């Protein structure tokens, strides 16, 4: 397997150097930009200039992308697989833009890794194939031969290695996602025994149990977390915890309970209308729609998408599209819009302006600048505020250009 690495701020700042020795089926590893000669030797990598990289056939390579600013360069080259390594926003970057385009990077990737547990959990609630690249276990979980040595793997390295092997073979990653949830779950459940009064630890245990589909057990930990928060006067937890309770009830199929719990945390008129709509769906037997919407309201888009994907009604497709919009799966949004327009279904999900803006973004990511600008300008003919997308796009392109220049300069 051939790999190509696109670092954010050059090789020096790349924090997963050891991981490169542990890549499965390793044939060739190229790093775009300059790499010190000693590092080339130590890590078994070769540097390649930006210009030379463009002359290679990337369909043969799995690319490891560490910055959202590489999207415009990498996507048009159609790599074999895209492996995204998500990082917290660097201090010198605009956080809003970094986070948005990191979401787009995750949505485009075949597999996502991150050392941040916060980003990891957020992404687990958005999409499949997310892996944590950090951990605490002192145990050794595997061994990989590297040149004359045998490298030992810890839990997350071993899981990442197995997941990448699955990706290379075109197999599903689900099994390894669950193994990692199980390990994280055990870690926090054990920690709760040690620190029974710690709200965050209990919340984390509840989250992993929920991800594993073990809501009846998760409730116990969430109740504990809630009590600890209230005891310590963190009263803003009503909204977050109650919605989580609601989602747990939806996971176990207790939909009346789920709606009732959700209704407790509702303040705005819009949310009240949503509660009415949920009751209405439930009365009409649209169980999966209720379930999916409760998941979405708890920001568990991944479960919502899993619930809605097999359904085939215009209502379910509209909800599915909302979830795709929230998770930046823009190509899926456009596909659903096209499908519904072809079948002349009633389109209650997305406005013309939003559709144009999403189209514009997709064009930009594929480096189709003219089409991107045209789509956004078309949107501005209906809604002038859409112009801000143009300025955002230009800021993104400037940042990407800066990064490309610094990479080229390194050579």
């Amino acid at each position, binding site marked *: 397997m051939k790999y190509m690495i696109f670092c954010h701020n050059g090789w020096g700042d790349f924090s997963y150097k050891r991981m490169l020795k542990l890549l499965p089926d390793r044939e060739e590893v190229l790093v775009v930009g300059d790499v010190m000669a000693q590092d080339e030797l130590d890590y078994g990598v070769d540097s390649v200039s930006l210009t030379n990289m463009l002359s290679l056939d990337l369909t043969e390579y799995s690319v490891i992308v560490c910055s959202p600013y590489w999207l415009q360069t990498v996507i048009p080259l159609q790599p074999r697989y895209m492996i995204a390594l998500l990082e917290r926003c660097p201090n010198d970057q605009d956080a809003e833009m970094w986070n948005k385009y990191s979401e787009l990077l995750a949505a485009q990737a075949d597999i996502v890794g991150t050392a941040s547990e916060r980003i990891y959990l957020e992404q687990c609630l958005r999409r499949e194939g997310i892996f944590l690249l950090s951990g605490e276990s002192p145990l050794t*979980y595997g*061994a990989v031969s590297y040149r004359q040595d045998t490298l*030992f793997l810890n839990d997350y390295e071993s899981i990442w290695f197995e997941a990448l092997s699955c990706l290379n073979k075109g197999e599903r990653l689900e099994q390894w996602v669950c193994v990692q949830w199980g390990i994280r779950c055990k870690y926090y459940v054990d920690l709760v025994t040690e620190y029974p009064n710690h709200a965050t630890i209990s919340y984390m245990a509840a989250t992993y149990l929920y991800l594993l589909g073990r809501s009846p057990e998760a409730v116990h930990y969430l109740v504990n977390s809630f009590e600890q928060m209230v005891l310590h006067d963190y009263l803003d937890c009503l909204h977050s915890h109650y919605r989580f309770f609601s989602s747990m009830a939806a996971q176990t199929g207790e939909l009346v309970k789920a709606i009732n719990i959700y209704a407790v945390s509702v303040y705005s008129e819009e949310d009240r209308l949503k509660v009415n709509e949920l009751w209405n769906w439930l009365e009409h037997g649209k169980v999966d729609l209720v379930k999916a919407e409760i998941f979405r309201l708890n920001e568990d888009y991944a479960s919502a998408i899993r619930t809605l994907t097999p359904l085939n009604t215009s209502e379910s497709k509209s909800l599915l599209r909302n979830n795709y919009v929230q998770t930046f799966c823009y190509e899926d949004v456009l596909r659903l819009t096209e499908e519904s327009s072809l079948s002349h279904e009633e389109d209650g999900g997305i406005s013309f302006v939003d559709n144009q803006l999403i189209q514009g973004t997709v064009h930009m990511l594929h480096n189709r600048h003219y089409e991107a600008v045209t789509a956004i300008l078309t949107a501005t003919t209906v809604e002038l505020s859409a112009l801000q997308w143009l300025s955002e796009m230009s800021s993104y392109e400037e940042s990407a250009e800066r990064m490309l220049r610094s990479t080229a300069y390194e050579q």
Partner: protein
Amino acid sequence: MDQQGLINFPSIDKVTIILEMTDPAWAVPSIQLLLLHSEHPIRIIALPGSLEFPPIQQYFEKEAPIEFWSYEAGIDPVNQALGTIETTFAVLMEDRIMVTPRWLSSLIWPCLDEERVMVVSPMSPSEQLDGKLNLWFQSHADLVSYAEDHHPRNQGLWRQVPVLTGSCLLFRKELINELGGFDPLLRSRELKVVDWCLRARMLNGQLALCEDVYVQALHSLEPRRGEKILSDEWNVFCSKWGVERNSYPLKYLSELNISECSMEPFISLIYDPYYITVIVLVSEVFPNRLESWYQINLEQTYSRIQWIGVLLGTHQEQPLSDSEMWGKLDALIKVREVEQWHEALEAALILVKGEAIIFINSSRAYESDYVTRVVDFMYRESADVVVNTGKGIPNLHAQVHIPQEPLPVPLSLTAHRCIEDVGSYVKSIEEFYFIPRSSLRAVYWTKGMEDE
């Protein structure tokens, strides 16, 4: 001290290493390190842990002192290998162990130092009690650096311990003569090792822990076969050793008074592979179709089979004299009326000589390793009843279930031991069923059968 010339280390002819292989990704580096770091001549007996274990011979030179054994369903390969030891010292090891320089002479030393020492373990993450040490190393090179530094400072240090549980044990051959092998009634490796070590103490043998040698142990991301101690097995162990059932975990075993145990410590290494009776139920007869069914389904890779055919209904057209078709059967029961199925089955059961019966039906297709797999599950999981749950990939972690209520299972997917009051047979319009007696140990697995 030997290296420094202070004491002459007695010459050691050869050491046998019995390596239990569970994962090829572990077995290859584990063997490579054994070949690299063993200071005495060694003979490795590599035992695959399952039918699915792939060949790994290609990673080693032909001259390497390794015997790769093939997997045999229905026998304990460790006991079989223990019976072949001819060297003074031997090591029983799992492939999760990665050894370090001077590991072998360090483990032999307590046996030379004290003649009553029978079993020796290094410090490692695989020991659950005294010798447990979890250290993290990025690479084998780092592990070697640690060992090089650790060893001289602790050279020759060992202490007597009440029990060992780990994945790397050196022992004297003479112990096998008196102690025999692992207890076949236990399934988890840890309990087998504990039981074996406690039995060694019954023979006044000492167990030693070497403080000057650390070996690394790999862990599995998912529970491996034989890793988890199940409650029924724990009960067997507790009854055997007179331990309170609620005394789990194992640390309480340190307080066990061996002198009060009166059982016979020897467990024979002589094994007798399962003899299986396969009862072939033929309730509808289509001669041509049955001919091809016979060729596909009665050609089994397992060899120790008694074949009994049970033909139900009118089958005048059936060429019973056709020796190719029925020559394989050791006995044939034939009844004209399907309603007489129960009498036919009873007659067949009287003829059974096997330790277990596998039922197969002409309405289903079975893979050629079907009997082998059933035997494998039955033996490995100490199951009374084995039920094939259908298509799919092999379920290596078979579902063990002890039903509280009798639960009917299709007879054509079932095997059971020949034990008293095992259950009852019933028939619906289409299918024969078996209802196992509740509280029997039932194992459900997947693969090897398709509905036609």
